[in-house]
């Protein structure tokens, strides 16, 4: 086996998806905040999108499973709030994946100075902004519910934070 590198680990972690949004990898979601390699041991630092995210344990076991299958002997995962997650950590690739999945990506942090930006979230289907916020809370902690007056359909947004 060739020597491990952190870029190799990041590449492999592309295979671990968010259990609630199976098109989005943990790397693109931005929850992996540090990867340290020491010989054949790997230490991952990760942080949840929302503190109460129930998918965290599944994410951790997904990471361990994938890295072990690649021959990593010891995987140590630390959950930390030192570098807290915020929605700007979602990569461009991740934002595209969310949109294709039918979830409106969050607006960038610069725009998100006021919760009013939730009122006219662009619809992931038609891109129109004639939309309304129906509920700041949705089926998972990280989603809100909106309605598009053009498509006459409800849609969800990955919430800005």
């Amino acid at each position, binding site marked *: 086996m060739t020597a491990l590198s952190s870029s190799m680990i990041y590449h492999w972690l592309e295979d671990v998806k968010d259990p609630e949004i199976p098109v989005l990898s943990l790397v693109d979601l931005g929850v992996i905040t540090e990867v340290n390699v020491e010989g054949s041991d790997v230490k991952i630092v990760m942080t949840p999108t*929302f*503190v*109460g*995210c*129930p998918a965290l344990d599944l994410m951790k076991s997904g990471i361990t499973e994938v890295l072990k299958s690649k021959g990593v002997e010891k995987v140590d995962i630390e959950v*930390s*709030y*030192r570098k*807290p*997650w*915020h929605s700007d950590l979602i990569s461009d690739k991740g934002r595209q994946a969310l949109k294709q999945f039918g979830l409106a990506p969050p607006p960038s942090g610069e725009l998100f100075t006021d*919760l009013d930006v939730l009122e006219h979230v662009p619809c992931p289907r038609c891109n129109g902004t004639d939309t309304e916020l*129906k*509920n*700041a*809370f*949705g*089926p998972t*902690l990280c989603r809100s*519910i909106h309605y598009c007056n053009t498509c006459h359909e409800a849609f969800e947004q990955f*919430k800005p*934070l």
Partner: protein
Amino acid sequence: MNALAIKELLYKIADDQLIIGHRNSEWTGFGPLLEEDIAFSSMAQDKVGQSQALYTILHSMGEQDPDTIAFTRNAAQFHNCIFVELPNGEYDFSLIRHFLYDTAVAFRFEMLSASSFQPLAELSNKIRGELKYHTLHANTWVKQLGSATEESIARLQQSLVYAMPYALGMFEPSAFEQELIADGVFEGEAALREQWIKRIEAIIAQTSLRLPDLRTITAIQGGRVGKHSEHLQPLLDEMSEVFRIDPTAEW
């Protein structure tokens, strides 16, 4: 830094979040409309998750693991304020409590994000962002229903008057108040109360509701030192019912 003082602070914040989270979860399936059902259930999940993260800090300071802390203590060992353990009642009371409690807790975590106790500062910085959604929800409905019909205004007003002595109990000072302030861990209950009053006054002023004269109200305290109402133990019995059947079960 005084570890005992920090632990006491962590216990009261975490217990507040766990108990109000449990009360919020009791709206699941019973909300006055589907959207509210989802909102209260979602806030419950946030709050219970946040309490778990706070209990995890306590665990790293030598306390029991989070599940043991949450599910095996009796009422006298809980440090939450009495306000959060009161039954949900009608939606008007739940909404007023949500508004009064979340306004306070949002300020609390904002203050704590500058704490000299690093693990708490980091977690609080994270939690305060999440709580923006909770205060947005509370403010939206208080403003709408507080200026809507005669009935909605009268109901909210009645709940506001009933809730206020309990709400003031949120700021029951700790025995370690001075140490916490001197060590830069927490600015203290009095400072929090002051910010809270300004904020709720500003929101209430945008409605047809009237804030009772706070100088004439005596705060209902005791929760911080384990003196609770008769409502807490039944809540704990229900919350821990499944855990007690098999404490070693894997989920």
